[in-house]
């Protein structure tokens, strides 16, 4: 065990898998000498050389397009997209190609590739360095979507993603890159995909959250506890394919649910969770399923703190599940 930041754990996962499997290559803008704009790839080029960790031209389209070619040819590419806000020039390659390669070729060709990218708000990055667009990828069959919320999960899930035989969007909550620390197993450490985690047990209301929001929800739960409300927090960790059971059984138990996410509310991932509950376990509900999310505006700069779900808004959401 070592005490690490979430960022350190991401770095450790890549180094571990690069040692373990020489098909793993890491590339993207500024990932080489600079070690990435956040430092996630620091040291990799030194240890593994410029063939295994290299800078690319400024083209997300090229990063993903060539990454797919590498994966189809038998490598294990791990591509870094500098900010999730900048992934869209590659959107065609991701949704039309990576996601569909196995299906459209009847399994003849596959695309075992990881696309890593920092996402989300909370670093004063404003309009174009803060967005949470996980829902786009969750709505794309053929992709898996993974979001860690702790250093140990970050390492274990990233290793599992690199080993996965299918393309994985691995989205890293940049807001907690350095602020969240924790014990992380050294060397090999795998957290299986499609298994959620109960972050905190509770009886009164289920709160579903992932990424940075897990930690805000923990704060909210502590405050709620002081007021006698016992929240259960569930972190799905893999958004697609989802561990439905862990959420549904929690809601069956509590009879209430709030989903918390940073992205714009409409058609966000929280809509999927709410829809799932409305379809599967509605008979257990004792209140509305509430979404506490970003607003339906582009991401603002100066008012970022108001845009993102905070303890206040989460508690207000919990309150709504009790008052219908």
């Amino acid at each position, binding site marked *: 065990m070592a005490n690490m930041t979430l960022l350190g754990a991401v770095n450790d996962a890549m180094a571990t898998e690069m040692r373990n499997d020489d098909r793993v290559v890491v590339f993207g803008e500024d990932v080489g000498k600079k070690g990435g704009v956040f430092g996630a790839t620091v040291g990799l080029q030194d240890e593994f050389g410029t063939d295994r960790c290299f800078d690319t031209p400024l083209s997300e389209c090229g990063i993903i397009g060539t990454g797919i*070619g590498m994966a189809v040819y038998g490598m294990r590419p791990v591509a870094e997209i500098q900010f999730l806000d900048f992934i869209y020039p590659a959107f065609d390659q991701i949704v039309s190609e990576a996601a569909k390669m196995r*299906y459209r070729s009847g*399994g003849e060709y596959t695309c075992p590739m990881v696309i890593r990218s920092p996402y989300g708000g909370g670093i004063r990055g404003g309009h174009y360095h803060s967005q949470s667009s996980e829902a786009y990828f969750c709505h794309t069959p053929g992709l898996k979507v993974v979001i860690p919320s702790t250093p140990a999960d970050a390492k274990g899930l990233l290793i599992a993603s690199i080993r996965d035989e299918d393309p994985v969007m691995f989205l890293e909550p940049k807001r907690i890159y350095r602020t969240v620390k924790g014990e992380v197993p050294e060397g090999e450490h795998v957290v299986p995909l499609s298994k959620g985690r109960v972050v905190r047990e509770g009886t009164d209301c289920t709160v579903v959250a992932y990424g940075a929001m897990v930690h805000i929800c923990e704060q909210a739960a502590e405050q709620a506890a002081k007021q006698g409300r016992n929240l259960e927090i569930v972190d799905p960790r893999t958004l697609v394919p989802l561990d439905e059971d862990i959420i549904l059984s929690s809601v069956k138990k509590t009879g209430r649910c709030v989903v918390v996410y940073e992205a714009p509310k409409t058609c966000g991932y929280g809509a999927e969770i709410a829809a799932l509950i409305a379809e599967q376990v509605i008979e257990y509900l004792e209140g509305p399923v509430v979404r506490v999310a970003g607003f339906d505006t582009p991401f603002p700069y100066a008012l970022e703190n108001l845009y993102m779900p905070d303890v206040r808004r989460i508690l207000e959401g919990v309150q709504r599940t009790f008052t219908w």
Partner: protein
Amino acid sequence: MTSEVLTILEKDGKVQKGKDPNLSDDRLRLLFATMVKARILDERGLTLQRQGRIGFYLQALGQEASHVGSAAPMLDSDWFFPAYRQPGIPLLRGAELDQIVCEWFGHQGDPSKGRQMPVHYSLRSINFVSISSPIGTQISQAAGAAMAAKIRKEDTVFMTYFGDGGTSSNDFHAGLNFAAVYKAPVVFICENNQWAISVPASRQTGSETMAQKAVAYGMPGIRVDGNDVLAVYRVCQEAVDRARKGEGPTMVETVTYRMGSHSSSDDASRYRDEEEYERWKQRDPIVRFQEYLARRKLWTAEWQAELEQEFKDQLNAAIKRAEAAGKPELGSMFDDVYLKPSAQLLAQRTQLQSLGGAADEEIGEFPL
């Protein structure tokens, strides 16, 4: 940079002195036979579509020299990232006819399990990567696979195809740029058939040639008469050699012509002149090659008739089998999304199966 076009085959089957790539007789005959077969395949494909037996077809009419000549210098271990207008490549490399024809029907026996429209083949046995419809996406993928081979110190060469329209795609720009930066072993074949559906090449770009686009990436860009199989072969042999020697990528523009409509959904007479077609018909790549072979006494009408008949018989048999093979079974729709179906997919499959049979035909009454 030059807008000159390399031609070897001249009128009446003569060749430009000193430029003949000197292929063996067998090799020459193989190339010719492949071009002839490709045309027959295309003929049958369109006919089946017109008969309503398959849903769509798209021909390479007039472009047989361009793709057969460029693919021929590739080794069996080399890889293709094709577009949708290179039917001769599977034929040249001996892919199974049944696989090709089953793909047209989307029936069992299609390696891609009926998931794509006709002519979007995936043929792993010949290193022919799954074709997709979005224009250009294969270009950067080919560059990436070539980067991978270079990283792994393997000497595989990669070839990718696209049209004049494809040069406008995002992936053309990214693919050529990455390939040049990493000196990846890949050959980019732009089949300039003068049209992107109804848009002429002159409205596709302000550049006089497609080949000169290579200048932007610091890589050689070569223009060749795409209806001259010997010229195409020669230029591509050099490009493949250069790639294999580690000297980096090349872009080749084959100047050719789409003699048919864009596809079975299109009618070229709406937007282009008959006269243009007639001009290009004079340069039919199969006729020109045949004249050359005849001159070298490598061709007789009987030999061609025989190979045509043999191929037609094979094709008819394959069509018969394919048509009878039937659609993939319902449950297969949920395979290959991931290596293993997710819980959600399993549930959806079960749900659909519980409704029983295919909604395909008449939709029955569902009891409320």
